[in-house]
C-alpha cells in the first residue's frame, strides 16, 4: 500500500492517491453546494437578512446526517475524530471577524470557490483576499499564539464533556432537537 519512494520525490506534494481523493471529494462537495443554491449571493444574504433559510436547512441536514454516521463509525472503531481545540478568546474573536467579512463578501471560503465555478467572477477577488488574509494571519501568528490563542485554551472539548453527559446520550437527545429546529423553520416558512 505505502509507496515511500513516491512521497520522497517532492516533499511539498503528497502521494497521488491523496490528491485524487481530495479532488473527488471536492468535486462532489462543490457539485452539492451549487445544486443546493448556497453558492449564490442572494441565497447567502437571504439567510443573513433572515428571509431565506436554505443555508440553515443544508447545514443542519449535513450536521444531523454527518453526526449519526461519524459517531456510529467512531464507536465501531472505523474512524478517528478530529476536534478543533476550544480556545475561547480565539474562537470568539475569530467568529467576530469572520462574521463581518462573511456578510460584506456574501460568500464564505468554500462557497466562494463554488461561486467562482458557477460564474460569479467577483469571487476571484474574494479568493485573492482569502490568500492575503491567510498570509496576514501567518505574519501575526507569532504574536497571537503567545497571547489570544492562550486565553481560555481548553483543548479538545465537546458539548457532552461540557454538560457532563456520555456522548451517546447527548447525541440521542441532540439529533431530535436539531430535527425539531428544521421542522419549525419549515413550518414557519410554509405558514408565511
Amino acid at each position, binding site marked *: 500500500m505505502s509507496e515511500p519512494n513516491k512521497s520522497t520525490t517532492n516533499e511539498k506534494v503528497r502521494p497521488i492517491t491523496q490528491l485524487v481523493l481530495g479532488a473527488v471529494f471536492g468535486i462532489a462537495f*462543490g457539485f452539492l453546494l451549487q445544486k443546493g443554491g448556497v453558492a449564490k449571493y442572494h441565497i447567502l444574504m437571504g439567510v443573513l437578512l433572515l428571509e431565506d433559510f436554505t443555508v440553515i436547512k443544508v447545514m443542519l441536514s449535513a450536521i444531523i446526517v454527518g453526526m449519526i454516521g461519524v459517531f456510529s463509525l467512531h464507536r465501531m472503531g472505523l474512524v478517528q475524530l478530529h476536534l478543533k481545540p476550544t480556545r475561547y478568546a480565539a474562537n470568539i474573536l475569530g467568529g467576530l471577524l469572520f462574521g463581518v467579512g462573511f456578510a460584506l463578501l456574501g460568500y464564505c471560503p468554500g462557497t466562494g*470557490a463554488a461561486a467562482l465555478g458557477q460564474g460569479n467572477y467577483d469571487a476571484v477577488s474574494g479568493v485573492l483576499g482569502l490568500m492575503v488574509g491567510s*498570509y496576514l494571519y501567518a505574519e501575526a501568528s507569532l504574536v497571537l499564539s503567545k497571547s489570544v490563542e492562550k486565553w481560555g485554551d481548553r483543548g479538545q472539548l465537546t458539548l457532552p464533556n461540557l454538560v457532563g453527559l456520555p456522548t451517546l446520550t447527548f447525541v440521542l437527545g441532540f439529533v431530535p432537537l436539531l430535527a425539531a429546529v428544521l421542522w419549525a423553520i419549515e413550518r414557519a416558512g410554509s405558514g408565511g
Partner: protein
Amino acid sequence: MHQQGEKMIDAVSQKSWSPYVVGSLIGILSWFSFATADKPLGITTAFEHAAALTWAAAIPDMAEQHPYFAAKRAEGKPPIIGWEAMLVVGVFFGALLSARLSGDQNRLWVPPMWERRFGPSKWKRLSAAFLSAALMMFGARLAQGCTSGHGISGSLQLAVSSWLFISIAFGVAILTALAMYRGQGVQDV
C-alpha cells in the same frame, strides 16, 4: 436501467435540489471523508498552505526562516499541496460542472442584489470583496476553521469550539447584513 439513466440525467440537469437532500448528501460525504482520508471536510487549511507556498516561491530565503514555517515544521504540518488543496480545486470544478449541466451559469461581476444597493461599479464590488475576504480569512485562521471546517465538520463532532465560532460568526454576520441593507429585503432592495 434505461429509465434510471434518464432519471439521473434529469436530476443533474435540474438547477436546484432540495436543501435537505443536498445537506444529507454532504453529511454522507463527511462519513467517507473521515473513513477514507481520515480528515474532516474543511477549506481554510488549503488557503493557508497556498498562501505559504506562494510566499515561499516568491521570497524563499525570507519565508523559510520565518517563525511560521519553523512552527509548522515542528507541528509536523508543513505547507504542502495535498488532500486539502485538491479539495478546494475540486469544489471549483464541481460547482462548474453542476452549473454547466443545468445551464445555471451566472457570468456576472456584480451580484444583482449588491448592484441594487451599492450601484453597478465593478471596482467597488471587487475591492469590497477583496478586503472582506481577507478579514474573513484572518478570522477563520484565528479560530482554526470556517463554515465548512467548524460549521459543518466541527459541529457534527460536537466540538465546543465549532458551535461557539459558528454561532458568533452567524450572529455578527446577520447584524452586519441588516446594517448593510438597512431593512431592505432580498426582493425589494
